[in-house]
């Protein structure tokens, strides 16, 4: 049963990014563009329930917004130089129908490079991108990030001011600047995704709709920038990770997941995106390499069937383009499965002196895994207890604690609470 209000919300989500982009192209100010877009939508909310939704809602909204822009500029042009200039450009602007089509997608692309501009702080880039490029409302963003609506509103207002004051141009970066400018855009989308599925705020439930929003943004970017391999790589990475959400409930590890719960549609589409990234023939970037690693898991019917040698090789490649102790640690896990615990212990121990690893709980967790396989459960228990103290969430701490208990039991050591002398 379709619902009128949800239909209007759907139309806003579908139309607002392109609408705001086209209006920004017209009035050269994203803040003003957004206000005009919202005013047009208010008019739609009044008229469409009465007259029905027009055949081309985007054109209706743009025409309405542009009309208001002309009125506004006419009124203001004598009072402000900015509006005088705008009045001139409006006179030359192409007709409403032509602009809203935006066949090459340049307006939309210009918009996302604006909302992800490095001059903005990270949270602002995320909020502004979701709002203007993603078509989400302030309330929706606030709800998904578990912050007050007013906070998101202020963040967005400040961001628009910053962009205006910095005179950030509304354009698609040139080919030579593209690698540097694309990175922050992909990073924003990836941040939204990880916010939606990892536990950084003290609990472990998966916020699927944020992850969905991120995947949608990534796919849009892939359609707008089809010749950029890392964009396809990002789509692949997100979809392959998301394909496992149902199996990951309550933090089930990869080796224990019920693979029949993996989402086949997402796996297929993710693998196809990975193929597209690789087929473009450029050196593989970090998102594509991570996606390729995820694909090794997606292709394995069972954990035991994983091509671990391929995973190790991919981590080697990833360590070249995006070196980090985390990459090295993940590589050590792959070495464990490919070459056995002795080789893995060597790999893990080489990381213990890295100062960045001192507070990283997973280093201890991995070392414990390796020690257990070397039949050294007592040492493993110590590592797990220490890792539990460093864990960033209650859920992970509890998981590590219970693994520590199991290791201690295996070592035959008494539990800390076992004090026979205290029992009567």
């Amino acid at each position, binding site marked *: 049963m379709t619902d009128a209000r949800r239909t209007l919300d*759907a139309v806003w989500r579908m139309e607002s990014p392109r609408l705001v982009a086209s209006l920004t192209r017209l009035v050269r100010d994203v803040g003003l563009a957004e206000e005009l877009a919202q005013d047009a939508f208010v008019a739609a909310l009044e008229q469409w329930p009465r007259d029905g939704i027009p055949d081309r809602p985007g054109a209706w909204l743009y025409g309405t917004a542009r009309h208001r822009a002309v009125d506004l500029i006419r009124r203001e042009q004598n009072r402000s130089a900015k509006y005088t200039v705008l009045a001139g450009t409006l006179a030359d602007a192409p007709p409403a129908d032509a602009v809203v089509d935006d066949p090459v997608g340049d307006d939309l692309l210009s918009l996302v490079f604006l909302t992800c501009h490095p001059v903005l702080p990270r949270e602002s880039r995320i909020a502004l991108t979701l709002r203007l490029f993603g078509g989400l409302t302030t309330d929706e963003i606030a709800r998904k990030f578990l912050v007050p609506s007013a906070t998101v509103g202020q963040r967005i207002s400040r961001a628009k001011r910053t962009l205006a004051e910095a005179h950030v141009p509304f354009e698609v970066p040139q080919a030579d600047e593209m690698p540097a400018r694309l990175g922050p855009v992909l990073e924003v989308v990836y941040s939204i995704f990880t916010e939606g599925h990892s536990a950084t705020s003290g609990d472990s439930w998966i916020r699927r709709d944020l992850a969905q929003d991120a995947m949608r943004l990534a796919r849009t970017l892939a359609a707008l920038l089809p010749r950029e391999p890392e964009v396809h790589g990002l789509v692949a990475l997100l979809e392959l990770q998301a394909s496992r959400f149902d199996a990951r409930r309550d933090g089930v590890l990869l080796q224990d997941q019920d693979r029949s719960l993996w989402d086949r*549609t997402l796996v297929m589409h993710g693998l196809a995106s990975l193929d597209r990234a690789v087929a473009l023939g450029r050196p593989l970037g970090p998102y594509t390499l991570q996606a390729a690693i995820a694909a090794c898991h997606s292709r394995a019917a*069972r954990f035991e069937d994983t091509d671990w040698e391929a995973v190790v090789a991919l981590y080697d490649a990833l360590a070249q383009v995006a070196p980090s102790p985390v990459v090295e640690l993940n590589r050590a896990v792959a070495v464990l499965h490919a070459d056995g615990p002795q080789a893995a212990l060597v790999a893990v121990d080489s990381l213990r002196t890295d100062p960045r690893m001192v507070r990283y709980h997973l280093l201890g967790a991995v070392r414990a895994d390796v020690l257990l396989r070397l039949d050294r459960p007592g040492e493993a228990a110590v590592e797990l207890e220490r890792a539990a103290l460093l864990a960033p969430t209650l859920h992970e701490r509890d998981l590590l604690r219970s693994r520590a208990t199991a290791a201690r039991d295996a070592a035959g050591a008494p539990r800390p609470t076992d004090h026979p002398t205290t029992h009567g």
Partner: protein
Amino acid sequence: MKVLVMITGSGADEDKIAPTEQMFVEMNAYNQQLAEAGIMLGGEGLLPTSTGAKVVFDKGVTTVVDGPFTEAKEIVAGYWIWEVSSLEEAVEWAKRCPHGDELTSSLQIRRLATVEDFGDAYTPEVAAQEDRVAATIREQQGA
């Protein structure tokens, strides 16, 4: 939510309109819009029913029928899988699908079922079967 969207038309109309270049151009533009919205997860056009066949189970009797299916009221001409935020959004996208005005066609929108949707019918035996099918598909994908 994921939806399957099928373009359907009458079997009797199948040969009436020959696809023109203009139709391809419009459909490509529409597919590009769907891709740029980030909702397109897959889709294919289907060749006419004259190239296909049907297996019919009719109260215990199984028969094979070769195409064309001129008497069928609904023939699927093509399909997509979209990831949308609501059924209403799927409807709005469907309304924009290019279509001729000479014949009647529909876009049927159906939500994909998830594990939760199956409820009691999803016994452990069914789950195990799914597992085997899924493993086979994954191996094919990886090949």
